[in-house]
């Protein structure tokens, strides 16, 4: 699949590169902080899949909604949640977007219509259907983008949600990031039909399979899908072929895949290939890359400092916001 470099401005290309590098360096930093026990619980890194979050978010508008999984740091950053608040949330600080209550797996942000951060595989697909239903009933022409991994395809909720979205013609953009492994289980070992787009088509959902390592292809496909949804109000499905370069979570010995396979995919990684293409076409100069890296490094350092200096939510607030209305 050839990269659509033609028609892309230098400015836009650099924006996309910056988006991906922000995610990449943030995730690397999180790995370091987790190893140093600053971040606790579970940590699921998006390294290798950055093109999808970066490309899709460019196709969405602020009025649209985003639903994601526990591997959502990249999506949160690309959507516009400030890195400071994201890092503080990872640390569990009160200055985090969820006051430290959610952590890595539960990023929520009302300002950017970011509805998690959901830890139950496929658990958020119905939420996305419902958000889209609200949009339809309120006639607001907003799209609900729903990110999930191919592991969700095995859950009943995947099928129920696709069926409902297609049946009721709801403006959901289903985005399946197929990184070939659901934790330690390869797709071929859990699905009788591994061509995921075909499953969506069986629900009469228009679906396509896209190279998830190609940020421009991702962006183009997403833009086309969003336009289609805004046009007829019905759902669309995109399956992205991608790969995670890191284990499922930090505590994973990767007994289920070959190191050679990982190395092969790394060579096709979204950033390294995009940089190569941009250099080839003269859109990227070395100085640009250095400048972007430096900028990203500064932003990350500031975010870490913000988190380090953050405070802990007072214990007395533990019961706050279990309910909106406190009982007399």
């Amino acid at each position, binding site marked *: 699949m050839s990269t659509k470099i033609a028609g892309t401005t230098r400015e836009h290309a650099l924006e996309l590169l910056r988006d991906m590098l922000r995610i990449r360096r943030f995730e690397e930093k999180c790995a370091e902080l*987790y190893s140093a*026990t600053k971040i606790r619980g579970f940590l699921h890194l998006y390294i290798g899949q950055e093109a999808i979050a970066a490309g899709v978010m460019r196709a969405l508008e602020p009025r649209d909604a985003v639903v994601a999984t526990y591997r959502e740091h990249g999506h949160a950053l690309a959507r516009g949640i400030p890195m400071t608040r994201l890092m503080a949330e990872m640390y569990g600080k009160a200055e985090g977007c969820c006051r430290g209550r959610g952590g890595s797996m539960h990023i929520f942000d009302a300002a950017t219509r970011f509805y998690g951060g959901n830890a139950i595989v496929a658990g958020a697909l119905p939420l996305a259907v419902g958000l889209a239903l609200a949009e339809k009933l309120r006639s607001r022409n907003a799209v609900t983008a729903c990110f999930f991994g191919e592991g969700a395809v095995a859950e009943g909720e995947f099928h129920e949600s696709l069926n409902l979205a297609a049946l009721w013609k709801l403006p959901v953009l289903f985005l399946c990031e197929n990184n070939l492994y659901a934790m330690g289980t390869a797709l071929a070992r859990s699905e009788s039909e591994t061509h995921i787009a075909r499953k969506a088509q069986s629900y009469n959902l228009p679906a396509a399979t896209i190279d998830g390592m190609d940020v421009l292809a991702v962006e183009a496909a997403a833009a086309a899908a969003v336009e289609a949804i805004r046009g007829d109000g019905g759902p669309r499905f995109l399956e992205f072929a991608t790969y995670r370069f890191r284990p499922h979570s930090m505590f994973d*010995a*990767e*007994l289920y895949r070959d190191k050679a396979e990982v190395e092969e995919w790394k060579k096709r990684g979204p950033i390294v290939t995009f940089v190569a293409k941009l250099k080839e076409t003269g859109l990227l100069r070395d100085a640009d890359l250095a400048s972007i890296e430096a900028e990203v490094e500064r932003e990350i350092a500031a975010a870490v400092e913000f988190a380090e200096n953050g405070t802990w939510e007072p214990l007395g607030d533990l019961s706050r916001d279990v309910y909106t209305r406190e009982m007399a």
Partner: protein
Amino acid sequence: MAEFRMPSLGADMESAKLTEWMVKPGDTVKRGDIVAAVETSKGIIDIEIFEAGQIGELLVQPGTDVAVGAPLALYVPAGGERAQPAAVAAVEQSAAARAVEPRAAKVVGPAAGRARASPAARRRAQELGIDLASVAATGPDGAITLDDVERAATAKAPKADMRSVIGRAMSRSKREIPHYYLATTIDMSTSMAWLEHWNREHAVTERLLPGALLLKAVARALEKSPELNGFWLDGRFEASREINVGVAIRLRTGGLIAPGLAAANERTLPELMRQLQGLVQRARAGRLKQSEITNATITVSSLGEGGVETVYPIIYPPQVAIVGFGGVVNRPWVAAGKIAAAPVVTATLAGDHRVTDGHRGSQFLTDLERRLQQPEQL
């Protein structure tokens, strides 16, 4: 020098075993390089260094278990020395941070006129006939506990209280134990003569009183009558291995207590005498040992000083027999067909008919009488 430490790779990882070094001292590394492999519960995982620099000393040998956060190697950071990141900022919460209590239900005070007392306290107060309003409370939220009621009970005049305790015990005895009574008059001529002889031959400190003989005789006779020496518990009789003869002692306050002479059958007469004297002294001073108060396996009630001839005692539950002695008095006696004055004592036995009967009881008394004719054997 900076420290490269064992990373945390998972929420439940506490340590890992270093299996292999991928670098050696002097190697240059950049951020993200794999420097070692560690074995965890999930398998072998490669660990990376997050800073560029030059490897210094390797502190740990492969095969060693290392805790998360412990140093594995030293290195010189490429950017020069810098302060090690501080340990995770101490959180201002105790390790066992308690969840905030849900807003407590309006704790309603006791209804008017109703004392705040536990069910156990309530029941005891009823048994003892105590008004809860008069009891000082020490329980949680100002509640009256069982101990509070007990304390209030003993705070009353001890005499009155002890009397009521005795009264209750005796009532229970008469209510529950089917008593049978036997009496026999025993010729004490031989014993008294022997006693007189002994007292002449020994120091004052070793004087024996008739009571000691009687107690020893009872103790020895019980060896042959184990069914009179034990307890009625849970609907059955349990014979006691020891023979601890309880001695009913009257207290100056008017109460009565019957501590036991431990292993009375094994004591020599002088020992028994001393034991008895000590018991009486301690009983009257209120300094009996707990074991003495509760160890009697049978009781002897001797009212000789009072001047009565015959005692009809009540068994102290859970004992199953009680022996009574009147005074040693001179009475007309028939010996060898002739009437003469002789010192005699009337011994009575009250027995628990659930365990023994008149026949068994009379065997005991017969044995008792025989022993008192051979005082030198006691």
